Structures are given as structure tokens and as C-alpha cells.
């Protein structure tokens, strides 16, 4: 009888006889009859038949072996493809551990990956995969059988859905799986330095296995597979069959050893890629900083140019202005009080005086482009500024008070510019219109800063009006025109000094200036 798949037997009568006749009951009866008849060919035919059975059995065994090897090759090929195409460490690790534990792979129950930290000089638990108990194992394996995914899909699922939970699950165990690289007596380091896998059996009684390691893993037999790439120690895989207790065979060990090389190489490559990425980010960041610096230099050059032009124009204007103002004053001095043109001359004097004020502000602005910072005593600065302004303040009926903080450290500032700013804030105060003519100044150390607070209770304006004053060349009815507060803000900002001006229509204006106490670059 020729069945399905045996069609080729129809072509060859000899082949048909070899394959089928030995199993045919008619032939068996004929052979039996020949034996009964004492036919001398009967024993020979029996021997030939027996030998044929033996050969067929051997061939089937070889075919089965080849099939297994083909599957293994296919799996390693698939694994290699995935590992070769990835430079993501998490992906590589997911693939590696999935391959070890997947039924389609090496079929181990559980695997741990330890990685070498050369800087710390330790081999440290990094990732674990596997069920904790039989119930969990049954559930996971059922899912795997049901889904029937390939290795890549399995590892992707693991990475997306289980990586974090597996990390958390084995966190404590992984923390304890830390071995110093110089502990040459430890079995894990022995396997790593020996560059060959070690199959541990009878772990609880094994002389080379530390009892704490056996207790930690909770299994009697496990496999230590070192990961070596280009003679560099990359890490270690510990695999076991903690659920099924299936014995780990020599064949398992050799298969895993073959698998270890591409895994180690892929891990090293991914780690190097990570490091490269970090360096690349650092270089990119440095490039961006360099670009910012270049832009800053260009901006500073532009500002310096603007400063030089402003300064040059201002100085060119000052001489004629001085001549006009000076002669107007001279004429005013010598004109009789009844002179009808005296008002005109007074106007010239007043206008030139105002213009000179604006010029001073512009020149101060030019100076503000180049702050020169050093360490100064802030109390000395405030007291000196108050002393210089005391006559004017007293004449206008202002009461001032300064409360210096205790143990104030020196502040890192441009003395000239900060003096100008404080004077300007007071000058604005002097032009106040409120009834409570008091200004209180205080200084206080807060963390690495010295905070100056100026509370002007005389002026009651809105925050919007105050914000308007912080814009250069703005003008308000009460506070006059020009740069004033805006210049203060610019000067302080250029020194990286935070300046806050808050207005309250009922409580006046409060200024806060935070001065640095160190040379560290201010943000």
C-alpha cells in the first residue's frame, strides 16, 4: 500500500520493496512459510530485514537530530538578526533574556543578567525575567502558547509590557546579586574570569557556591554563563529551571555558550552606543553653548559699538550744550529782574539743564555696557549713598532709615553701577507726591545672596505705571522722562542681579535687589 508522501515509491520497484515489503503482513507470512519449509534463504532474508529496520531507525534519529539543529540554527539566526540590528541596550537585554526563557528558545524557567561596572569594580544585578511560582508560570506559558509569537514579538512585548514590572519584581534580589570583580574566589567571578560557563549542581552543598547565593536563588542547580566580548568582561547570565526543575543538560550549556557571544557583543555595542550618545549630547550641548557664546560676543561687539557711538554723540553734544547753557546763565545773571526776555533765558537754562541730565543718563548707559565687578561691603555702599543724599532728602522733608543685616558677606558687584542704581531709586523717591515721606532701606543675608529692600512709602502708583517706567525712555507725569529706572534694571540685569519693583497704590513702591556673594556666573 502506497500512502500520501510515498508517491516516489511508485517510480522505483526496488525502493518500494525496501520500504514497504518488510512491513507487509503477506511478506511476513511468506517468510514464516519459508522458515517452516526449511528454505536456506529464510535466515538470510530475516537478517537482511533486521538490518534494514536498524538502518531506518538510525536514519530517523539522524533526521530528528538535524531537524532540531535546523530549528536551533533558525532560532540563532533570528536572534542574531535582532541583536545585530539593535543598539538599544534595553532592547538587547529584552531579546537576550526572552530568548533564554522562551520555549522556542532555550526554554529555561528563569534568567538574571548581571553587568560589569568597571568604575565601581563590581558585577551588579541588572535585570531578571521569569515566573515566581507555578501559577504565574502556567499563566505566562499559556499566554505564550496561545499567542504563538516569534522571538522578536515576544521580546517587544516583554520590553513594552513587562520590563518595568520584572525589574520591580526582582529588585531586591538583583540588589543582592552584587559581587566585587576582584573577589576571585566567588564562583560567579571564577566563571567570568575563566570565560567558560559553569553548570552548578547541588548548589546548597557546593563548596564553591557561597551559601547566600544559593539561598538567594533558591535552586539547587543553575547555569553561570559569562558574557565576554573582545576579551572584555561584559557580564554574566544566571539561568535556572526553578519551576519545572528540569535538569540542565550539557547540550543546554553548549547552546547557551554559543548564544552568549553575540549577546555579549550586542550588549557591549549598545553600551558603547549609549556612551557615544551621551558624549554626542555633551558635544551638541557644548556646540550650542559655543554658538550662544559667539552670539553673545557678536551682541556685545554690537553693544560696544552702540556704546561707542552713543558716547561719541553724547560728548559732541555736551560742549555746545554747555556753551548755550553757560552763556544763558551768564546772561540771566546780568539781566535785570524787570527784563521781559528774562523768562526766555530762564527757559534756555532749564532746558539745557534737562538735556544735560539726559546726556548723563545716556553716558551712564554706555558705561553700563561694561560692568566691572568686585567684592564690596554693601552696608558701606548704602551708608555712603545715603550720606551723599542726606542734604537733599532732609531739605525735602524725607525721613530715611537703614537697617543693616548682621554678618553680611561682601557682595560681588560693579560698585559704580550699583551706587548709580540706588541713587536713582532714591532720586525717584525724592520726586514723590505722597504724604508719608519716608524711605526705609534694609539689607539681609538670604542663602547665597544679600537682599536689599527699599520701601518708598511716599509714592502711590499702579503696577502698570511702574512697569511702564522700567521701559527705556518712557515718560510719566509724576516720575519724569528719561532712562532712570529702566537703566537701573538694565544695569542690574547685565550683572545677573535680580531686580523686582512692586507698586501698590496704598503702600507705595517696594524695590528688591538680590546681590550675589560669589563670583559664580549669575543666571
Amino acid at each position, binding site marked *: 500500500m502506497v500512502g500520501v508522501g510515498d508517491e516516489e515509491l511508485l517510480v522505483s520497484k526496488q525502493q518500494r520493496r525496501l520500504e514497504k515489503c518488510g512491513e507487509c503482513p503477506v511478506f511476513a507470512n511468506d517468510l514464516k512459510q519459508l522458515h517452516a519449509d526449511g528454505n536456506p534463504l529464510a535466515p538470510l532474508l530475516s537478517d537482511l530485514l533486521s538490518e534494514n529496520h536498524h538502518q531506518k531507525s538510525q536514519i530517523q534519529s539522524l533526521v530528528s537530530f538535524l531537524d532540531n539543529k535546523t530549528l536551533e540554527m533558525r532560532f540563532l539566526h533570528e536572534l542574531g538578526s535582532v541583536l545585530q540590528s539593535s543598539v538599544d541596550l534595553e532592547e538587547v537585554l529584552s531579546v537576550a533574556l526572552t530568548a533564554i526563557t522562551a520555549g522556542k528558545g532555550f526554554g529555561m524557567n528563569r534568567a538574571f543578567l548581571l553587568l560589569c561596572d568597571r568604575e565601581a569594580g563590581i558585577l551588579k544585578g541588572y535585570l531578571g525575567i521569569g515566573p515566581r511560582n507555578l501559577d504565574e508560570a502556567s499563566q505566562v506559558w499559556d499566554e505564550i502558547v496561545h499567542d504563538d509569537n516569534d522571538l522578536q514579538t515576544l521580546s517587544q512585548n516583554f520590553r513594552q509590557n513587562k520590563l518595568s514590572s520584572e525589574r520591580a519584581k526582582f529588585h531586591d534580589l538583583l540588589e543582592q546579586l552584587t559581587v566585587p570583580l576582584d573577589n576571585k574566589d566567588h564562583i560567579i567571578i571564577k566563571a567570568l574570569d575563566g570565560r567558560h560557563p559553569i553548570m552548578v549542581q547541588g548548589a546548597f552543598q557546593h563548596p564553591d557556591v557561597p551559601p547566600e547565593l544559593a539561598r538567594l536563588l533558591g535552586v539547587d542547580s543553575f547555569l553561570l554563563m559569562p558574557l565576554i566580548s573582545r576579551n572584555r568582561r561584559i557580564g554574566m547570565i544566571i539561568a535556572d529551571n526553578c519551576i519545572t526543575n528540569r535538569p540542565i543538560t550539557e547540550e543546554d550549556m553548549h547552546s547557551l555558550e554559543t548564544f552568549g557571544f553575540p549577546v555579549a557583543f550586542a550588549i557591549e555595542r549598545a553600551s558603547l552606543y549609549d556612551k557615544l550618545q551621551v558624549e554626542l549630547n555633551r558635544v551638541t550641548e557644548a556646540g550650542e553653548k559655543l554658538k550662544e557664546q559667539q552670539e553673545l560676543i557678536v551682541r556685545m561687539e554690537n553693544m560696544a559699538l552702540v556704546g561707542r557711538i552713543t558716547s561719541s554723540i553724547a560728548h559732541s553734544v555736551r560742549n555746545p550744550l*554747555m*556753551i*548755550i547753557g553757560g552763556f544763558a546763565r551768564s546772561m540771566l*545773571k546780568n539781566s535785570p529782574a524787570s527784563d521781559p526776555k528774562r523768562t526766555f533765558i530762564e527757559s534756555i537754562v532749564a532746558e539745557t539743564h534737562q538735556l544735560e541730565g539726559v546726556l548723563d543718563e545716556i553716558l551712564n548707559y554706555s558705561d553700563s555696557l561694561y560692568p566691572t565687578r568686585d567684592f564690596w561691603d554693601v552696608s558701606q555702599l548704602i551708608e555712603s549713598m545715603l550720606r551723599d543724599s542726606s542734604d537733599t532728602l532732609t531739605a525735602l522733608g524725607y525721613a530715611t532709615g537703614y537697617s543693616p543685616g548682621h554678618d553680611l558677606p561682601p557682595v560681588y558687584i560693579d560698585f559704580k553701577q550699583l551706587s548709580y542704581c540706588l541713587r536713582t531709586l532714591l532720586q525717584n523717591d525724592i520726586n514723590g507726591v505722597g504724604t508719608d515721606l519716608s524711605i526705609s532701606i534694609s539689607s539681609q543675608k538670604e542663602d547665597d545672596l544679600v537682599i536689599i529692600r527699599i520701601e518708598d512709602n511716599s509714592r502711590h502708583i499702579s503696577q502698570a505705571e511702574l512697569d511702564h517706567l522700567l521701559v527705556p525712555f518712557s515718560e510719566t507725569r509724576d516720575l519724569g522722562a528719561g532712562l532712570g529706572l529702566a537703566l537701573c534694571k538694565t544695569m542690574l540685569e547685565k550683572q545677573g542681579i535680580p531686580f523686582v519693583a512692586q507698586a501698590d497704590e496704598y503702600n507705595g513702591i517696594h524695590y528688591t535687589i538680590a546681590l550675589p556673594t560669589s563670583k559664580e556666573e549669575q543666571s
Partner: protein
Amino acid sequence: MSTLLVVDDEANIRLLYAEELKDEGYDVVTAASSAEAAEKLQGGLFDLAVLDIKLKNESGIDLLQKLVKERHEMPVILCSAFSCYKDDFSAWLADGYVVKSGDLTELKQEIARVLAKKAQKIKAEL
């Protein structure tokens, strides 16, 4: 009566200074350049010099250094449109520093202060 030497390259400024300082009771001699100043200095004795820092193509600071070296008994007041020189160590040789302004009160006060100081010094030496 004190005699002052005013050095400034602007004719109108020289005129303004001369008029205003004469009103204050000083004798005023003016010069437009370093060379003219040197010439005037050779021709008479001066109690004080008022120098502009920018003299067309010359530097008032150079002239200041020369005066301090050759006429150290004569005080010098720098008068300039450049307020920044006030903080420049090269200007520290001067006995006074005034930023130019149509209001000459500060200059007049500074001249009076420096002359009084000089008088005190001479008195102390006697």
C-alpha cells in the same frame, strides 16, 4: 588776585570760562592747545590751570603729566565732557576733576577749594 590758565580747544568755552571766572575775581589767560599753553606758561606765573582732556588731536592727560613734572607747584583741575576719566588712574594726578556743564558752580567751587588748599600748604611751609 589769582591767575588762572584755561586750556580748551573750543573758543566759545574759553570765552565762557574767561567771562565767568573774571566775574569771580580771577585773572584768566586762555590757550587753545598744548603748545599755546606752554607758551603762556613761559610768559607768566599761574596759580592754577583748568585743562580740557580732549584737545583736538592732543591729549589733555599728556599735558597734565607734563605740568605736574615741570610745574608741580601749580595745581591742575581737569574739566571734561568725559565723566569716565574721573575713575581713570591717569587723571588722579590732577588736583580736581569737574564734568563740563553749563552750570559752572561746581567748577567755581572746585577752583576755590584747590586754591584754598594750595594757600594752606604754602602757609604751612612758611
